[in-house]
């Protein structure tokens, strides 16, 4: 499944050249949050439809998709507009991607720019010959179902356009923060997770490995798995760091407390530590991961980075095959798909429901009501309904039993 471009990349002896795109306001913020020092050699680019926001961005290259059409007001939360803008300037985007082996796209889905531009950018980058990895966040539930629907639709498009999508449903963050966390901190926190993921992947491909994870491995892992990829990055230090790392992985909310591992088809584990990384530690981590996902194909990597000193960092990417063929064209509409994202979002909403892999219902689980004539409950209309085995006993018996009166 390798394209010629990737072959040429793999043949390249030097470290891959990486471009990191922040799309939309959220993407910009994420871009800003990435610690530059760690990404030596990467180029940062901001893409936005909002000139004002773009001006404030710290990215080295700024691409403004502004057009007269929008009168400088941005995409206005409408992904269709964002998409139209991006397609209008497709060549600009493509040329911006030229020369990169890997393109990272950071975006917050749900709004206009992130949802609209990202898929087009991914397509452009791919056409420019780069491998495209998208790191996106899904909106919080409270942001409304329109944003959620837009985000899910955009995620779908992105999955078909990019080589890999790593997605973080923000709602999962709720488990991690306490009630008093401010909004700003929450978003920072969400962003922090994504940044960790980017850093993990970055390290994976940029650092020399004792047990090398080939770039091809990464591609093979995340490509064609058009279900959501779950990822996490954990760090620990000290003598018991291997055990601590395992515990953290298994308790990590982004992996659904380890359930994502059990459900995945392929898992990539990459360990990075200082020079004192021992075989026993590697073994310990790998054993525990393997036990969690006995069916999955496991790719492991281990690297040494003197800068880490005492710390042991582990990046885990768990991917699951969707039931759809990878090449299936994805419609632009908010078609509901069988994704773990949808699952995860739904699972948050209805914790009581058993986790099912095949949820064909809409992204928003709304109880539909058939247009039958509704029986008034008279004086019990406003009181707590008396339910018995699913029957509402407040409704007259003769109606529930269908006894005719004539």
């Amino acid at each position, binding site marked *: 499944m390798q394209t010629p471009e990737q072959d040429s990349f793999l043949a390249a002896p030097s470290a891959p050249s990486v471009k990191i795109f922040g799309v939309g306001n959220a993407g910009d913020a994420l871009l800003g949050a990435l610690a530059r020092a760690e990404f030596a050699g990467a180029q940062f680019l901001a893409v936005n439809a909002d000139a004002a926001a773009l001006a404030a961005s710290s990215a080295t290259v700024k691409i403004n998709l502004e057009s007269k059409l929008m009168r400088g007001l941005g995409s206005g939360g409408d992904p269709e507009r964002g998409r139209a803008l991006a397609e209008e300037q497709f060549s600009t985007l493509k040329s911006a991607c030229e020369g990169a082996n890997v393109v990272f796209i950071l975006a917050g889905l749900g709004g206009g720019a992130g949802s609209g531009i990202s898929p087009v950018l991914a397509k452009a980058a791919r056409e420019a010959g780069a491998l495209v990895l998208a790191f996106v966040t899904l909106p919080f539930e409270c942001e409304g179902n329109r944003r959620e629907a837009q985000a899910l639709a955009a995620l779908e498009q992105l999955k078909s356009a990019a080589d890999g999508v790593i997605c973080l449903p923000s709602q999962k963050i709720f488990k991690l923060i306490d009630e008093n966390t401010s909004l700003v901190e929450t978003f920072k926190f969400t962003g922090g997770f994504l940044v960790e993921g980017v850093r993990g992947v970055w390290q994976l491909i940029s650092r020399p490995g004792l047990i090398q994870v080939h770039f091809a491995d990464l591609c093979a892992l995340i490509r064609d798995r058009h279900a959501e990829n779950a990822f996490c990055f954990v760090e620990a230090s000290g003598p018991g760091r291997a055990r601590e790392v395992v515990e953290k992985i298994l308790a990590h909310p982004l992996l659904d407390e380890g359930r994502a591992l059990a459900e995945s088809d392929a898992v990539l584990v990459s360990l990075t530590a200082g020079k004192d990384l021992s075989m026993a530690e590697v073994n310990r981590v790998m054993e525990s991961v393997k036990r969690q996902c006995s069916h999955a194909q496991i790719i492991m990597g281990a690297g040494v980075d003197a800068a880490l000193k005492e710390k042991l960092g582990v990046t885990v990417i768990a991917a699951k095959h969707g039931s759809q063929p990878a090449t299936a064209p994805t419609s632009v509409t908010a078609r509901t798909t069988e994704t773990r994202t949808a699952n995860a979002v739904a699972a948050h909403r209805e914790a009581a429901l058993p986790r099912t892999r095949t949820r064909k219902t809409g992204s928003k689980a709304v109880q539909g009501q058939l247009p039958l004539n509704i029986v008034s409950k*008279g*004086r*019990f209309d406003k*009181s707590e309904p*008396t339910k*018995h085995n699913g029957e509402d*006993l407040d409704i007259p018996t*003769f*109606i529930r039993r269908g006894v005719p*009166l004539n």
Partner: protein
Amino acid sequence: MFDDSNIIAGLEIGTSKICVVVGEQNADGALNVIGLGQARSRGVRKGEIINPEQVEEDLRAAMFEAEQMANVEIRSVYLGVSGGHIRGFNNRGVHPVVSADREISPDDVDDVVKNAKAINLPAENTVIHAVRQHFFVDGQDGVTNPVGMLGARLEVDMHVIHGHANRLQNVIRLVRATSLDVDEIVFNGIATSLALLTGEQKELGALVIDIGGGTTEYVVYSDGVIRHSGVLAVGGDHVSNDLAYGLKVHLSRAEKLKIEYGCAMPTDAAKGQTISITNELGLELKRVNVEHLQRIMHLRLQEIFQLIAQELEAVGLTDYLRAGVFLCGGGSRVPGSVQLAENVFQMNVTSGHAGGVSGLTTALDQPEFATAIGLVKFGSLKNRKRNELPFYKKGFLGRLTQRS
């Protein structure tokens, strides 16, 4: 406060009426009903308060009437509670007998009862009653008092009735607001069965169904102990509501029709019969088909009985009801309800009367007052027991009512 007084009052805040019964206990413990007060209840739905102010007003009216009649001042009441949130279930406690001689001591009994009360309730729920059923000594069934027996393992079955703490507190607070004390809260079903059943009937096995305005309580006794209890938040109000809906008349008119023409079994005589509804000037507004009226009522009441029958079938108690079914509450006044219950339960059904108390015969004969009378009876039993208890245990009865 009550130790020096022998006046006991029972208060039932029902969906259709608020009812106070005042009893006097003589030195032998025998109970004499001396006062009765009632008022139409307007602030209650399905056994639960929805308008405290209105309930308070009605409550004061009922209390006033009862005090007038009995010529006493009521300072505290036994309060009956009901509502769809109340549930009953059985729980078993286990306790190993550790003494060297394996003789079961009263302490062992206390411990096993404590164990049986340690149950997993939802956080917002509180226990209303925990009624001891039977002890098991090394698996031997049916022991009523194990003290002094030899055994290694003592078990006890408890019937625990619990309900939503806040909703129970609401009623208690409301009664307190009228400067009345609440001696204890009692599940209406238990009060009713106290009034209705004799010891012998409890021994044989009996089902008591109290069809009230907003709720229907049911309690099953067998072998002298309470086996099962529950509340259906369906009652006479539902019958009226069904009629109002089915016959397309006002709720108050439906209520009147129910009382005047109601019947639990469809009768042949009703075929083709109509009732004309007239306005205040005597002009006919509408004609109502009696057959329809009866059919609607029949279906609703039948459903209530069927739901209870299914419930008992599920817990396997149907075959233990050798004394039969006892009906009371306003719903049992509907002509044909006994026959309908007989059809559903396939056993002997009696319209219950409060027994074991003397006094106002008019009050005792009414099925609606069974609960309030039962509350007084409950109080008299507690009083009697309290007088036998050492002083330091007297306080614990008000455990739940003390919280506010």
